[in-house]
């Protein structure tokens, strides 16, 4: 979890020869933040760590035995702006929630809704039939149904639990 760094502006002093005052604790904190940022960037080079416009849609996953159903809450996203990709190992949902300009020159009293790009990827623990996957967007909820392969169904084995 990275937090947005809020660095107070260093007060300009009239005496040019004097060095700006730096809070030693703050500079230590900045150093640590920088180390973490470079560290995290190593995991995912494509993802800007400081992205402020990123949001994290919530995902539910349900299992019917034969199919996996993934639902994502994406209110107000145009279906053309949603990109769903499924591989045999993972499901990736990405896109953008665009901010619509409703009032030219209007002022915001509240801004709780989140806009921006999203990118979520979930691993699929079972072999799936990629070609049979289908996605549907309705009422601000995206649902994706992915059938499991016959092989995966066959491999699922019930282990009886015995008492003494």
């Amino acid at each position: 979890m990275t937090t947005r760094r809020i660095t107070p502006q260093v007060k300009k002093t009239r005496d040019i020869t004097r060095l700006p005052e730096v809070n030693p604790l703050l500079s230590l904190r900045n150093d640590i933040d920088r180390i973490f940022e470079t560290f995290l960037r190593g995991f995912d080079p494509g993802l800007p760590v400081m992205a402020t416009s990123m949001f994290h849609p919530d995902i539910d996953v349900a299992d019917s035995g034969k199919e996996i159903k993934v639902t994502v809450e994406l209110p107000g996203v145009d279906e053309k702006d949603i990109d769903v990709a499924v591989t045999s190992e993972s499901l990736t949902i990405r896109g953008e929630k665009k901010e619509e300009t409703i009032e030219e020159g209007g002022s915001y009293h509240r801004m709780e809704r989140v806009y921006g790009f999203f990118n979520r990827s979930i691993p699929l623990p079972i072999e799936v039939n990629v070609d049979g996957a289908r996605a549907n967007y309705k009422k601000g909820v995206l649902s994706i149904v992915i059938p499991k392969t016959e092989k995966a169904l066959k491999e699922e084995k019930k282990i009886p639990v015995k008492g003494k």
Partner: protein
Amino acid sequence: MADKSKEMQKKEIEKTDLVERTRATKIYNPDVDIIEGKDRIVVIADMPGVNENSVEVTLEDNVLTIYGRVDWDVPERMKLTHAEYGIGDYQRIFTISGEINREKIQANVKDGVLKLVMPKNNMPKMKKIAVKAG
């Protein structure tokens, strides 16, 4: 990696002393944007899972209530294996000021987003009152 505040975490309403409810579901507080323009105020609420038939907007005195019903759509035979968002209804209550023209409030639902357009009354222009010495 997003800010905690940027995550679309639904907030459940805690106080339930409003009315006795007949539906045994959770109620969430939808995220809203309120934008004021020159001649209207627009309220936009994110309510994934609702459509025009399941949203109620009521205005009683100064109290504007939006309520969205969400039906559980996970079929019986399906088992939820991973849940990040809860399924429940939405409710949010606003107090509106007298400058709103109540007769002309419009509500519109698209892609799980409720948009309320509330035109303002044509308020008389500010009038200066001359102060006389007397």
